[in-house]
Every structure is written in C-alpha cells, then in structure tokens.
C-alpha cells in the first residue's frame, strides 16, 4: 500500500516521492531506486494499491495511469 504526499503549499514543489505505508518509507521517483522499481511493478501488476494525498484509494486503472506517467 502506498500513499501520495501533499504538495508543499509554501514552495509549491510537486511531490517527487511516495510513501510506503507498511514502514513509512519515503520512496523517491528515481528509476534506479529498487523500492521505486518494486512500487511501479506492483501497481502495474495490480498487487498493490495507491492512495491519494487525502488517503482515498485510487481506482486500479487510475493508479496504473498515474504510475505510467511517472519517470
């Protein structure tokens, strides 16, 4: 299970990482990062869920589209 971070309202930097809820780890959107590769693989395979920044689960199709747009 993963969750998106909220955008920082002061800097307006878009989140460049995602939270792994099982251990609170912050995983960067870096294709060379092993955890990030696992995240993308799990979402593509439909074996994990992504929540939006408010904690609402994204539909599987939306999650796949979201991940497909990431680096």
């Amino acid at each position, binding site marked *: 299970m993963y969750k998106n971070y*909220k955008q*920082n*309202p002061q800097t307006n930097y878009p989140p460049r990482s995602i939270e792994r809820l099982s*251990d*609170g780890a912050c995983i*960067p959107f870096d294709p060379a*990062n092993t955890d*990030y590769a696992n995240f993308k693989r799990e979402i593509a395979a439909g074996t994990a869920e992504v929540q939006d920044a408010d904690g609402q689960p994204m539909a599987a199709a939306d999650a796949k589209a979201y991940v497909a747009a990431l680096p």
Partner: protein
Amino acid sequence: MIVINGSTGLTLPNGNVITSATVSANSGTAALPNYTGTDTDTGMWFPDVNAVAISTAGVERLRIDSSGNVTGLTLQSENVSPYSGRNRIINGAMVIDQRNAGASVTPTDGQYSVDRWKTSLNVASKFSLQQSTTAPAGFINSLLATSLSSYSIGAGEVTGVQQLFEGLNVADLAWGTASAATVTLSFWVRSSLTGTFGGSLRNSAANRSYPFSYTISSANTWEQKSVTIAGDTSGTWLTTNGIGIQLYFSLGAGSTFSSTAGSWQSGNYISTTGAVSVVGTNGATFYITGVQLEKGTVATPFEFRSFGQELALCQRYFEKSYDTTTAVGTATRVGTVDWNFANMGTYGVVNIFYRATKRSSATVTNYDPDVANTVGLRYWNGSAEVQGTGSRDGWYGSQNSSRWALGSTPQSNAVFHWTASAEL
C-alpha cells in the same frame, strides 16, 4: 637422475655439488614443479601456454601469464598487496552491521543482515542470520545462518544470501563480450554439516547463471575455498549503477533453481543439483567470511580494508543517523536530527546531507527516538512533546541529501532518526 662418480654427484668449479636433477617433459604442477632443487614441491612450472609459475611448499605463489600480468604475488610485509582494490566484494569480512548491530534476525526476502548481504528466499522463517564473532584466524566476524527447522525444500523454493555488485564496479570484467575476464572467488566457510554445497553467479536478469560447488570436509571447522570462473562471453551484463553481478550462497534450493556446476548456462540457477540443504537440518549452522571476488585465476590473500573504508563503501548503499554500533530502531537520542525552529508558520524544512553519495536517490525512513522500532518522530505540539509523523509533505530525496518538510502540526521543533537506503 644424473649420477657421476658414484654417489658423489656432479662437482662444480665453485665446490657446489649437484646430487640430482629432474627434468620433466610435462608442464608441471604447483605440487610438482618442473624445475626444483632437492625439495620437489618448490620450484618453477608452466601452468598454461606462454605462462610460468612458481610454487613453494606445493602451493602456487606467483604466476606470469602470456600478457605479462603477474598474479599471486604477496609482499613480505604481511597483509600488504600490490593489488589494492582487487576485492569486488564489499564487507566480505562481515564487520559492518549497520542495521542490526549484531542482533539475530529471521529475515524476509530482500532483508539485510550484515551490510551488503541480502537475504533471498521465497519460503519464510526457515533460517536466521546474525553477525557472529566466530571467525577463522585473522578475522573477527562472520555471517552466521542457523536453520530453524528440518524443512524439505520444495522444487521451486530458494533460501540463501547474496551480494549484488553494482555494474559500475565490475564493468572492467567485460562480461558479455569476447574479452570477458576470468574471476576467482574465495571464502572461508564452516558448517555443522559436511558435503557439497552450492552457489552461483548470475546476471541482473537472472537468465545467465554459473552454478558452483564447494565441499566442506569437516564439521564445525573453518575451511577456505576458492572457485575460478571464466567470464561469461554471452548474455547482458549491466555496467551501470544497476545490478552487474549477483553472487549467491545457497542455504537450500529446489530443483527448479539447481543445475550442474562448472559452466555458464542460460536460465536462473542459484545452486547445484544435490547440494547440501542447510535448512533441511534443524539447528544446522553455516558460517561464512573472508569473501573475495577478484579478477584473475588465483585466489590472493584476503584484502583487508580499514573499518572506516569498509563502512564508507557500505554507506553508498545504506546510511543511518544512529551510531555505528546502534541498531536501527533503537530508542536513543544519540545522533538524532534535532530540528528547532520558532514561528514556523505553515511549514518547516530541513536538508540532511549524506556522508556518502548514494548509488541512486535514496529511500528514507524516520524513527521515533524515544520509542523503539517505531516509525515517526517527536514534535512539540504547542503544549507538549508528542509522538507522531507530523504532516509529512514533499520529502525530496537525491543521491546526496534528503529534504524533509513537516506540515503545520509540529509548532516549534522535531526530533528524529533516519535511514537512507539505495540498495540494489
């Protein structure tokens, strides 16, 4: 044999006497060199075409190959070698244990025990791993695997530990090309079991494998093993910051992942057919240390690096705020990030710079410094310091730093530990 003047031998002008000489038509061996004195296991021989070697006491000490490369030379000064940096293994002496600080773990797949040694399994809770102080002479640590049951491994099951080499660190081996270099793997091993054990080298896609075997002859006795492996001229071998080579020591593997030792094969194999299964005997122990993978055909003495050097190499892949000998998740304020700010308003931000540049942008985790093994932090909520995560937004990781931002919940300070992982 030359005999002149009966038993006297051949007297030279300087008074020396040659009593016997042996000239062999073959190339000789380390144990029986071609050219010797009266000591027949010490001398010069010819291990290959256009190559020459010297052995003493039946052991090869020096070799010059057809290209003029010299291998196996050990200087008189102990533990000093002209080949600094030859060991491609990081933490081969098992001295760095940042995560667990010597504590035993029953690992899940992908979990680390000592640094750089990654658990591989698809069947849970069959063995534990721990940094051990049982070690052969000259070493202070080993990695200990202990079987937790008498488990009959299934055909598609695997258990073991592996080290994944970053492609950038093995690019010079030129594997996957006609120039693929030969490597030699050496290690010290000890087990309560005897017999033939297995392991393998694989590429990142795990579709090229070289299963190897080694024999432990005596139970509960340290033995040094070496395996020389001709480089793979086929397959795809990454030379990037991805996985270059996977080295696997099996603790038990099913038939699907086992094959014949001693050759490169297409497929995913991590052990050899019929190898001893450590997890098959309840309480069985398996220790390993002094692991070295080097270019060339000879196992040279283990390359000891200083503790600081070894730690720095490990920190390219994993780093923490805790002291070196403090396990991650320990309740302690030693080493915390103490982030004090006043009138923060909506957000506060702090950057943490790593000691070592990471292989990739790192996965970061923060820990409550006062509650053991709890993800989170301590913060001041306006009237008391409480445990929580704050409203963590926009944490940006890079190879060199993490940028930590808290939301509006913490009002004036936050305290936490952190880890950064860029493991393969």
